[in-house]
């Protein structure tokens, strides 16, 4: 193989590799959290309290982290598209941890019983104080891509 042909072969392989990398990156979906380790383990009530005490400091500690939350199932919400949101917390309180389940694990969520204690792994996306039109609707910590770990 001539030197020139060898260089062109390497350039071509390089272009294919770069194109493949960009294609993989472009089509990449969010990681399945059931296969990843949680960075923090905490109870639902402690998580709500932590955010209510100091929103800004707790934001840094929890947001964009994979966390495992253990708590009581207050409500299991099913949306029109068959997706589930598991709401953890004290039934007597308006504040909750809202866990949007990963669409691949809907069947696990559908079997949950109200008032049972479960552990969920999810990505923490933030905290919202719901004070709207002068009414306190309670505060919510939000998790997405959730999977049920223990029920």
């Amino acid at each position, binding site marked *: 193989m001539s030197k020139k042909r060898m260089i062109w072969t390497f350039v071509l392989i390089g272009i294919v590799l770069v194109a493949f990398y960009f294609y993989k990156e472009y089509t990449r979906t969010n990681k399945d959290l059931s296969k990843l380790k949680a960075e923090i383990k905490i109870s639902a009530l402690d998580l709500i309290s932590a955010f209510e005490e100091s929103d800004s400091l707790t934001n840094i500690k929890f947001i964009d982290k994979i966390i495992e939350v253990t708590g009581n199932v207050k409500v299991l919400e099913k*949306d029109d598209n068959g997706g589930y949101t598991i709401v953890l917390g004290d039934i007597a309180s308006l504040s909750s941890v809202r866990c949007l389940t990963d669409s691949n694990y809907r069947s696990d969520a559908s079997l949950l019983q109200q008032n049972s204690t479960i552990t969920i792994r999810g990505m923490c*996306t933030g905290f919202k104080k719901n004070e709207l039109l002068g009414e306190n*609707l309670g505060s919510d910590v939000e998790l997405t891509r959730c999977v049920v770990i223990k029920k």
Partner: protein
Amino acid sequence: MFKLILFIFFTFLLNTTNGQSALSPGEGKYFTKAGKISFFSKTSLENIDATNKSTACILNSKTGDVQFGVLMKSFEFKKALMQEDFNKNFIESKKFPKAEFTGQLTNNAEIKYTTDGTYTTLVKGKLTLHGITKDLETSGIVVIKSGKISVSSTFNILLTDYNIQVPKVQRSQISDKIKITVECNLEPLKS
């Protein structure tokens, strides 16, 4: 005793002349914390959509006042790279974590909240997104069924109105005009 009777009489008179009895806090208000907001960007190269299913919404049926609150990071995309770009580069969700709409149903008096029915309404208010507040006027639909209320609306916003910058290389992928759809099923707020 006479003073007490007079006080009760005038309080009753005041309430009836106002056309309604005194409201306790929360009365006449409907809310949800499981509202759905989705947005859609359409270009010849790519369609992008994302959904948030934890939107808080409250409606005061007496005044027509309405308010929504949403966490930007809770929008879910099909592609992880687009979700990362949305939070980091476009909406800057670390700096501006929430979006909020406060407004009013302008024809609220025409809506009979106690009987089942479907109403078209005009909503006027202010949308705060990416740290910028702009006036927003759109039509919506209010459905009353068995004591529950559903509100929905579809409208467009321009990214440039909210100072959301899309890098040149992505302008063919992301439209400046974004279609937003809001759907909330509201429950009575018990005080």
